[in-house]
């Protein structure tokens, strides 16, 4: 099919415009964070920062309790993701590899659980946590973040387990492995990219979670970064340099993880493994 010059140009032109539209807010965040205040509050925007300063980052990091909150966020996120991965791996294996009564029912249950409107259940969760005297603690946060991502983790992992060729497992069992050994030695290593890709969703959810920590943890020592960031601007008034530096610091781990894991997830799972 021959296309006119116009027909060849417009998709590329649209792509460039879209690219600019999608990237600009991210770019503007980093650009503002590195600009001296004079360039931020100027009558005409400084599109490309020429005088670069790290002052805003220093200010953001110097804010009270910053490192405590970083540590809290990392602790909660990593524990929640690991917890949900372990639980999900068992369930996903059963759902992908075994035939039993009620299998569909379980899948539907997890699909429904995935819809759970956690945002509107915070009052009930607050009461439960309070009645168990666990307010201002990282434990309930971890546990609830884990369950928030659990259904999707199960459903996604199920796909990855199903994608590992059955022949591999069976031949390991023919070679004398038990089913558990076959799983640990053969399937698990092949699942690694799937586990990473799946955990990405968990990381994003837990790292971002906002309503629950907003209501449960009033003690600043037990809060997490999203809460800090949302209050940062109020605390620092119109100091957009520091606010954008704080946003950049908050966004950076996820941006890196995302780009890194996206690639990992797609890099061939098992192609060739069976042929060998």
């Amino acid at each position, binding site marked *: 099919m021959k296309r006119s010059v116009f027909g060849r140009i417009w998709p590329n032109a649209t792509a460039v415009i879209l690219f600019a539209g999608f990237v600009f807010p991210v770019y503007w965040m980093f650009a503002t964070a590195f600009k001296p205040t004079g360039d931020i509050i100027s009558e005409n925007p400084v599109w490309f920062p020429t005088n670069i300063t790290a002052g805003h980052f220093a200010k953001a990091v110097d804010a009270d309790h910053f490192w405590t909150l970083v540590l809290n966020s990392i602790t909660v996120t990593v524990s929640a993701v690991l917890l949900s991965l372990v639980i999900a791996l068992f369930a996903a294996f*059963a759902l992908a590899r075994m035939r039993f009564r009620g299998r569909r029912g379980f899948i539907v249950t997890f699909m429904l659980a995935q819809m759970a409107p956690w945002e509107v259940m915070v009052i009930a969760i607050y009461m439960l946590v309070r009645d168990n005297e666990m307010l201002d603690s990282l434990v309930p946060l971890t546990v609830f973040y884990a369950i928030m991502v659990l259904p999707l983790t199960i459903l996604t992992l199920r796909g990855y387990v199903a994608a590992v060729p059955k022949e591999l497992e069976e031949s390991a069992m023919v070679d004398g492995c038990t089913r558990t050994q076959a799983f640990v030695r053969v399937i698990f290593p092949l699942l690694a990219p799937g586990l990473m890709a799946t955990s990405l969703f968990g990381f994003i959810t837990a790292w971002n979670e906002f309503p629950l920590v907003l209501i449960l943890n009033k003690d600043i020592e037990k809060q997490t970064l999203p809460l800090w960031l949302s209050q940062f601007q109020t605390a620092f008034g119109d100091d957009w340099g520091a606010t954008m530096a704080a946003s950049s610091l908050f966004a950076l781990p996820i941006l890196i993880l995302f780009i890194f894991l996206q690639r990992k997830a797609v890099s061939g799972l098992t192609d060739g493994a069976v042929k060998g």
Partner: protein
Amino acid sequence: MSVQTEGTDTAGEPAVHKARVPAPPRGEDGGSAPPARRGAAAPYLLLLPALLATLILLGWPLVKNGMLSFQNLNPRQLIQHLTEWNGGDNYEEVLSGSDFWHVVERSVVFTAVNVVLIMLLGTLTGLLLARLGKRMRLLLLLGLVLAWAMPVIAATTVYQWLFAQRFGVVNWVLDKLGWHSMADYNWFGSQLSTFSVITLLIVWQSIPFVAINLYAATTTVPRELYEAASLDGAGAWKSFTSVTFPFLRPFLYATTFLEVIWVFKAFPQIFAINEGGPDHLTETLPIYAFVEGVGNQHFGVGAAISFLTILVLLVITSYYLRMVLKQEEDEL
């Protein structure tokens, strides 16, 4: 990040697709031996932790929410740990006021506008991805992934800065384009403008998911179908409606459903950008429940609103839910 029906694409699925391609046979007997049967209880034991966790951490709060909604629970009762049942008073209070119905209407309109925009623009972007050359596609994918990966709260903060009254870049551009009244415009001063910013933010963050997955789905459409269509004299539009679209339909259903849920539940974007203001005018149901229940410390009323919110969500999504449940049953 994922879609619920089987057979639709998820972010990681190119890899899965690859792996599902049948492998060349290793030998005549390879792969036909049935797996050894261990105890029949094994699958249930494996599922037990997940089920228990769901039951305790999801089921219990749901039940608790239902119970709270029938209680008179204000700061006094909260502090003294009193349980005062008040029958359906909370529901009567919520349902008889006009506030609740305004918020429901607003939430439905808000969800509809956002989801239509997301699906329309996301689909167009996805189709564009399929049409681009390799290099341009990578460029656009990079932009999409960056927007997708941006944490919600960070994105919300950035949008506050983009739309800031003083020194905000959006006002500057509008001013330079000749719209001088916008030079010092306060975006967070009126309902419509606040919603516009929130909508732009949500649409910007949601398009990548739709576009990237839709692009992945188009790659699964067999080439021969297009060839057959063009042999039959179908133009670009005709081959889209008769070949591409039918292939994408299940995916589009599933994605629309997910987007409806996500947009309807959207909390951090709305709350962090203006706390439901100005003057409560951008409160959607989740925000309304939070502000009434936690902000004004009417916990019982808040629980009743939460429960009603879940009902509204179920009604909105019931059509698709029924479809999925039926599908799953048929496959039994």
